[in-house]
């Protein structure tokens, strides 16, 4: 299975100053790639400062490949903030209620200082809720 791509311009994975271990970085790559396999949408995870809150998260969302069909989960551990940004196409399949549920799931894990597992639970939940039902002929492999 291919691993997630690191978006250019960010410290991962070459930046050794990141507090996450190599294993945790690989785990995050697997998480986003698995979410993409589940839902078909592009998933991204950002961990770092969000000085302008949601505005900063939207800027990072635009750096994802095909942002209209992408979901970004951004976490600022210092500010204890979570931002989930949906592309306009993803918003058709993924409701605000599902995002709130994912945020609640992550909040409970983050409160226990479990960053990676919280992201895994939240991203997986979003991917499962974003999975659109199969459409006759359109989803046939021919």
């Amino acid at each position, binding site marked *: 299975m291919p691993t*997630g*791509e*690191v*978006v250019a311009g*960010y*410290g*991962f*994975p070459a*930046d050794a*100053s990141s*507090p*996450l271990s190599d294993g945790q*970085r690989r785990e995050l790559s697997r998480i986003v*790639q698995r*979410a*993409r396999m589940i839902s*078909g*949408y*592009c*998933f*991204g*995870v*950002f961990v*770092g*400062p969000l000085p302008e*809150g949601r505005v900063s*998260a*939207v800027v*990072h*969302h635009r750096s994802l*490949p*095909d942002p209209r*069909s992408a979901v970004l989960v951004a976490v600022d*551990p*210092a500010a*204890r*903030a*979570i*931002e*989930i*940004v*949906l*592309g*306009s*196409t*993803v*918003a*058709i399949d*993924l409701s605000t209620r599902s*995002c*709130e549920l994912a*945020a609640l799931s*992550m*909040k409970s894990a*983050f*409160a226990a*200082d*479990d960053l990676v597992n919280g992201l895994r639970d939240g991203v997986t939940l979003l991917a499962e809720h974003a999975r659109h039902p199969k*459409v006759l002929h*359109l989803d046939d492999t021919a």
Partner: protein
Amino acid sequence: MTALQALLVFVGIPVALAVVTFGLVSASGWTRSGRASADYAAGPFLVASDAAVPNPSIVPSDNPDAAVAGGGVSAHW
């Protein structure tokens, strides 16, 4: 039972248990995985999966200025 044995039994063992318990409780904070509130400013990162699978049921927008972000939520913990 001598005085030394009594001291070891009634003071030494409880103190040793307290030290072990404190160590086990604090252990998660000593490991990297247990530190979620560390300073991430030095190494922000963004990891993304491959691009989305093409969905023929979605009509692509002709308007490049149309909103890219279409929803989501904000939360704090």
